[in-house]
């Protein structure tokens, strides 16, 4: 009896095992495919140029920390990193502030022109002119005389925040209005309701807004490229790294390029290693529910 059962189930088990192995192989290949360019960047940033272009070893024969020194000092990446940091930090703060103020009031108050405003925000989420919208913005910044400072880039990258406004609006709606009402009866103004009640409760959603604002600002390339046309010392890191491709002796500077690329991706990798779960859950909160 026992034997019979065993015989019957054994081919079935085989199949399950094969499927399991195939699944594992598939995921492993996907993981290697995604991680390889990142590892290449970081390991490659410690190689000499000759090793990079001619050699075929995975590891560097000796770890060239000097590449980073050259990138930071000779290629002036220290300045560009600072630019990127200032821009990303300011954009994150501004994005959180503006989207939370607007999202809160849209969720809680009716006012003249609210419907029009919401439909404008919505339509701008779907109408996309792409990178060319930067030209009129640049012209405007120039007429305001902001194009010689990082402010132009910061304002441009913060932008309309339409998606984040809706995100915060949806979140605020899920907070019971009884809380506001109780506070108003106790004599709070709408500003105090916002500051004392809603703001502390919206921390989770503002965290999502901050994370994505930081990512977008740190990784941006095109806005940084255009907004700093007239003032190259204001270039963000991404632009400076990519421009190494166009330098006169680019062929001899692969190691500097990779060191620059590593400098540009390591900070965001660090942020990600602490907040990967928030990135992933934030993405679905923004895309599917928003």
């Amino acid at each position: 009896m026992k034997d019979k059962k065993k015989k019957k189930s054994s081919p079935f088990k085989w199949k399950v095992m094969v499927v399991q192995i195939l699944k594992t192989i598939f995921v492993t290949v996907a993981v290697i495919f995604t991680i390889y360019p990142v590892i290449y960047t970081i390991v490659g940033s410690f190689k000499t140029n000759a090793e990079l272009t001619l050699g075929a070893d995975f590891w560097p024969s000796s770890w060239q920390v000097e590449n980073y020194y050259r990138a930071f000092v000779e290629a002036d990446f220290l300045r560009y990193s600072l630019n990127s940091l200032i821009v990303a930090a300011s954009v994150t703060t501004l994005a959180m502030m503006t989207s939370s103020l607007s999202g809160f009031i849209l969720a809680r108050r009716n006012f003249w022109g609210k419907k029009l405003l919401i439909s404008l925000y919505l339509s701008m989420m779907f109408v996309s002119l792409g990178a060319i919208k930067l030209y009129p913005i640049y012209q405007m910044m120039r007429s305001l005389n902001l194009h010689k400072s990082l402010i132009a880039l910061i304002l441009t990258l913060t932008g309309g925040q339409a998606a984040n406004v809706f995100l915060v609006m949806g979140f605020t709606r899920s907070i019971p209005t009884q809380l506001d009402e109780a506070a108003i009866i106790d004599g709070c103004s709408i500003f105090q309701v916002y500051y004392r009640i809603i703001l502390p409760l919206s921390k989770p959603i503002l965290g999502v807004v901050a994370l994505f604002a930081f990512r977008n600002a740190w990784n941006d390339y095109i806005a940084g490229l255009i907004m700093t046309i007239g003032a190259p010392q204001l270039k963000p890191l991404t632009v400076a790294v990519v421009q190494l491709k166009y330098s006169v002796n680019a062929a001899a500077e692969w190691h500097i390029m990779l060191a620059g690329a590593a400098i540009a991706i390591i900070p965001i990798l660090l942020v990600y290693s602490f907040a990967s779960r928030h990135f992933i859950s934030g993405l679905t909160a923004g895309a599917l529910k928003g």
Partner: protein
Amino acid sequence: MKFYANRLKKKEIKKNFEAYIFLIPNLILFMSCSLYPVLWALKYVFYQYGGYGAAEIRFVGLENLARVFRDKVYWQSIMRTFTYGFGKVLIIIPLAFLLAYILKERKKINTLAQSTIFLPTIMSSAVMGLVFYLLFNAYNGEINKILMNSGLIHQPINWLGKNHAMKTLIMTAVWGGLGNYMVYFIAGIQQVSTEAIDSARIDGANETKTIWYIILPMLGPILKIILMLAITSAFNDISNVMVLTEGGPNNATMVASLYNYRYFFPVSTTESTVPQYGYGAALSVVTACVAGLVTVLYLKVSRKLDDIY
């Protein structure tokens, strides 16, 4: 009575005023960075602005739009955008779904794999475009070296040459987008009730059948959103193309977003073009319309499909 109405009105005005104080910071940025550029483009569609030997801004009516419709290179770039977009979507969607299906359960090892595959999403596509430019370099690139050393190829492949540039571009775009769509699918699959899956399994459906007859149909609405996001985002991808291939060689990867961009700014520092803002505005408005049209068509077709099933 009149006094009361007056007070009400005052209260109303005060309420409106308060609301606008909250809105102002965001509204200023929205007006100047989102709305203004669109209005700007809609205006200059009808103007000659910039270009060869034309210093003044001149109203030209529909001339720019007519030129767009005659511009063969532009329509080729639209077709290339479709190749790029559909290539990206057709590779990403099945892979992302399979990965999501395999990694859907909340286990430590699954979470680790998920966050690794999601990694490219958080990195600058421009910087990684540069890294791919080095990786796929024909003579010194790592990819060719690996393939040659393992004996898979005997001659270096010119990945960024005319014949392969688009494929290479799509490959890097898949790299950048896979994790994103995997996460969307995981969120979708987690919404499919486990009871339906379990009961199908009890009734003797195998894994493939469960996926095909239970999970995919129940994913329907989310799949629709995911596909729409994928299609529209393909029209906006520009920095990866700009850094990896600059639209070349010989326009082989000149997608619409980059083609329009060239009428405003030079793509590389070595290139010198005379900007034509009026014509560029017309191009970008038409491109936005094409993208909108594709979305509408897609929604119509997918609704029809819903009716059939």
